[in-house]
């Protein structure tokens, strides 16, 4: 009989791991709390740096995992530790006995309304990176007029690198996402004046710097080095954004028609809840704690429990996919060793 492997989370990490585990001859069971597969990536439109449609990535993974057992709209109700395995009760009444669990629970996006001074949910013309992707996908959002905004801005580090927001960590992908979205907006609305308010631009990945150079040179996107301090609304409903232009050491303000907040990546609270069922430790950054943050990122300190993707920290799509493959291999080695 094929070994059961319970995968918590049907985002790209869970799907990629399931696809690999199928190929290795196992029986992956995916438990997904929402009604669709693909997680956050399914809500996205295009992916940096090659503008790959997100839908392509998700549909390939879904096709590759058609043989897996997948439960949508399902959560883990409770877990009983048996001698060498776990008996896991799902919210749909099914119980699964497995020696191996893979956390692919991903992340939550920071709730941008918690940065009160930016007025998300209060000022009409403030949106998040996710809202903008939604608009790229559907074309529906009252905040973006047909002729486009005359001037708009992107605020980096919203709920990232922010002790007040209880997330001192860098979310890693927002810098490049802002540059990507700024370019996309400029492509749609070439006349728009587009500003990015940043503290540092962390262009760490493959071709990211090229992307940034292109945003500057080819698209004329204006980068202001200063963290946005305050957003307010004027009588015409336009936004007034205040920051320091730290390169000149002067306060700077600008009136905008649209402001996009680059909401950061925080640990999914449901992850912590599920991790609590089996007493998995949480690291000081709020994400799940690996056995070792360099050599063993995909292994938990508990035997038989593995991680893939953003449940251990902010990751890009290719990093998540690579980690999911790595986790599948770790699981394979673990099960082979036990037999």
């Amino acid at each position: 009989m094929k070994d059961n492997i319970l995968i918590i989370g049907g985002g790209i990490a869970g799907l990629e791991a399931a696809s690999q585990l199928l190929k290795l001859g196992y029986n992956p069971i995916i438990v997904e709390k929402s009604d669709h597969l693909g997680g956050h990536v399914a809500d996205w439109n295009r992916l940096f740096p090659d503008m790959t449609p997100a839908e392509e990535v998700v549909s390939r993974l879904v096709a590759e995992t058609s043989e897996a057992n997948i439960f949508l709209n399902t959560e883990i109700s409770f877990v009983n530790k048996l001698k060498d395995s776990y008996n896991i009760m799902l919210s749909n009444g099914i119980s699964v006995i497995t020696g191996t669990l893979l956390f692919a629970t991903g992340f939550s996006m920071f709730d941008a309304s918690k940065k009160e001074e930016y007025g998300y949910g209060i000022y009409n013309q403030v949106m998040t990176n996710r809202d903008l992707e939604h608009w790229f996908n559907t074309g529906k959002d009252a905040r973006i007029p047909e002729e486009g905004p005359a001037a708009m801005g992107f605020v980096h580090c919203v709920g990232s690198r922010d002790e007040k927001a209880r997330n001192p960590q860098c979310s890693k992908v927002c810098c490049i996402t802002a540059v990507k979205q700024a370019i996309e907006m400029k492509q749609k609305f070439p006349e728009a004046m587009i500003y990015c308010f940043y503290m540092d631009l962390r262009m760490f990945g493959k071709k990211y710097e090229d992307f940034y150079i292109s945003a500057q040179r080819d698209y004329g996107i204006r980068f202001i080095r200063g963290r946005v301090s305050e957003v307010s609304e004027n009588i015409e409903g336009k936004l007034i954004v205040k920051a320091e232009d730290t390169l000149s050491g002067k306060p700077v303000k600008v009136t905008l028609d649209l402001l996009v907040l680059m909401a950061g990546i925080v640990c999914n609270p449901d992850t912590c809840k599920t991790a609590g069922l089996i007493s998995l430790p949480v690291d000081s950054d709020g994400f799940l704690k690996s056995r070792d943050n360099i050599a063993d990122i995909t292994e938990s300190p508990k035997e038989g429990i593995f991680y893939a993707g953003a449940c251990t920290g902010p990751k890009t799509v290719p990093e998540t996919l690579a980690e999911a493959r790595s986790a599948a291999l770790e699981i394979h080695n673990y099960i082979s060793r036990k037999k």
Partner: protein
Amino acid sequence: MGKLYDELAKDYRIKEGLKTCINCGTCTAICPAAEFYKYDPRKIVDIVQSKDDAEIEKLLKSDVIWYCGECMSCVTRCPRKNAPGLVLMALRNLSARLGYFVNSEKGRQLYPLTKTLTGNILNYGYCVYPDTFKWEDHVESGPVMKWHLEHKEDSFARVGANYKGTGPGILRKIPQESLDELKRIFDVTGGTERIETVYRCSEEKAKEMGMDMDEYFEETFTHISPGHLNGEDE
């Protein structure tokens, strides 16, 4: 690392107000002083953070640490939980203690401030008091205020104040034994010593500038050299 930095580090306002600064500028962006003075609180915090004693000494002797209005708007916004306003207060405190304040025009204003405010506290028990609030020094308070001060006994009585009266109430006379307690608090906590330091350094500076103390008061209270505010050449 430097002696001045070590002195600053003992101040609870530095312990509270300066963890690590990332130079993001959220403080300067909304700072009322940065908007009108040639002033950038971020840079000041960065200098203190550098622990460079030579630079800190320059700060302590400069006008720039006296521009802050202590509104603390910066505190709300700092993503690293710093309080630039508290850092400025610690710098001013050290500048006053070491007598460095007399080296700058804005620093020298500590003399009229100390004389008026600590005088009001020790003599009357209030920070602001009608008998020492001269309309001529506050012409912008307008003709109604002038009228009010000219008829202050009657005007205060009209709105039910207990001006100079016994017992509780608005502007009551604070009993002498309470004023004596305030004086002893000043003696015990370094308040009196601070007043003496400010007076001594100011008197030396006045002598150097060839003024008596009344002239020095007037000069420091009213004189504005061009160059502090935005849009002015030095």
